[in-house]
């Protein structure tokens, strides 16, 4: 049995989809689904959910890297086998949740997790910083402008205390996407760390004929900056493209469609910081993150400039915002001019929108605050 390369279509199974979720519910979940009454976070990383039946589900949430090995996952399974009847779950933010059905099973679980070094930090709940969702970066992507796993590790090391406590005015969701494609869709995060390119694509005329359909590359550009052109390769005229550098916004969409147009660059690439987004509809409507720092250099292995920038914004917010206020709500209440002043972030022309729909962000009132920006 097994795959037979001589006869690949024999007994082929397709379109079976994922297994039914009900096979994986811990017993206390299966029994009380749809009949939960309330929940409470009893300590950072520990939640209790109370059901109409009187049953309780105690959840211990631990942080994990997004890039993890099967050896580590097997260790998670060991923990779940020892304490949780052989069930566990993952959250949308790469945390792992271990569930037990009574309070007295929580401490042994916490002790077990703590005995395994720093692999299973308990936290990520309530008014704190939970795990950073992120993309692949230099570990596995062909278009990144920065690494992802390394930047996240450096930032989380610095913000670790905020992961294991709940001392902020509200939850703070941090996300990282390693290029403007934003696979990680960081555009609605309290703090977004975004890889950006700053040099237009190069054209590899010697390769373009072999690997690229020119019309696709041309139509890929949102600003019409890629045009048909001719070039000479080995004495022969070939059809190729040229890029109007003045119109390039460094999105890399052309490179996605045409491998002969690479744009990554050690000095050109780096990180932008956007803040004030939120997804929840609680109180105010969902908000986009706004660009406040247009560029920080790539400085592996620990990206000190990015770590410092994120920590600074977080701590100024923590000291100034009201209870329940998300970063974006705080910035809107005090005004963005005050945000820049309080955070001591220089305001640059790069934060003034000149792309599509830009007018929405221009200020059309006489209401403003006098900050140091007005000379």
């Amino acid at each position, binding site marked *: 049995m097994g795959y037979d390369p001589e006869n690949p279509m024999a007994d082929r199974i397709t379109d079976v989809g994922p297994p039914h979720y009900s096979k994986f519910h811990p017993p206390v979940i299966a029994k009380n689904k749809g009949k939960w009454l309330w929940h409470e976070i009893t300590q950072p990383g520990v939640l209790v959910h109370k059901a109409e039946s009187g049953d309780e589900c105690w959840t211990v949430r631990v942080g994990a890297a997004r890039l993890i090995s099967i050896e580590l996952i097997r260790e998670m399974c060991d923990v779940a086998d020892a304490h949780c009847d052989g069930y566990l779950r993952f959250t949308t933010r790469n945390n792992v949740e271990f569930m037990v059905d009574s309070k007295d099973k929580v401490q042994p679980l916490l002790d077990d997790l703590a005995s395994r070094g720093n692999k299973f930090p308990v936290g990520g709940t309530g008014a704190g910083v939970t795990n950073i969702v992120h993309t692949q970066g230099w570990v596995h992507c062909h278009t990144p402008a920065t690494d992802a796993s390394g930047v996240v590790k450096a930032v989380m090391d610095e913000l670790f205390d905020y992961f294991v406590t709940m001392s902020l005015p509200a939850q703070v969701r941090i996300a990282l996407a390693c290029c403007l*494609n934003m696979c990680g869709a960081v555009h609605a995060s309290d703090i977004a760390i975004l890889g950006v390119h700053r040099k237009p694509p190069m054209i590899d005329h010697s390769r373009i004929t*072999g690997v690229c*359909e020119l*019309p*696709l590359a041309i139509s890929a550009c949102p600003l019409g900056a890629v045009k048909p052109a001719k070039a000479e390769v080995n004495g022969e005229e070939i059809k190729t493209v040229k890029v109007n550098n003045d119109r390039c916004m460094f999105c890399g969409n052309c490179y*996605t*469609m045409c*491998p002969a147009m690479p744009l990554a660059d050690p000095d050109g690439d780096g990180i932008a910081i956007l803040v004030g987004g939120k997804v929840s509809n609680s109180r105010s409507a969902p908000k986009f993150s706004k660009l406040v720092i247009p560029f920080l250099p790539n400085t592996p292995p620990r990206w000190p400039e990015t770590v410092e920038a994120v920590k600074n914004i977080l701590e100024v917010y923590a000291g100034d915002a009201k209870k329940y206020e998300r970063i974006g709500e705080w910035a809107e209440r005090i005004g963005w001019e005050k945000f820049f002043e309080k955070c001591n972030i220089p305001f640059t022309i790069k934060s003034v929108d000149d792309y599509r729909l830009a007018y929405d962000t221009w200020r059309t009132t006489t209401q403003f605050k006098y900050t140091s920006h007005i000379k």
Partner: protein
Amino acid sequence: MGMSDDEIKAAIIEKAKKSPKPQLYIKDFYKCDPDTKPRKIKNLANALVREGELMFWSSGSTTMYARPDRIKNEEGDEGIN
């Protein structure tokens, strides 16, 4: 009255053979029979992949169709599908 399934399939293959660009979007096949719903044309194009007449070409974010003998692979590998 639209074309029969076999007629549409033949038109799709013809289009994939003759088109100046080897990779085609699914939309490019809609014109093979404007009277047939796009979802049906999609199903027929996907049937042709199963039959080996077409293959998928993907950039990761976008998937296109091509005749297997017209496709270039940067790596020089045999395309699997």
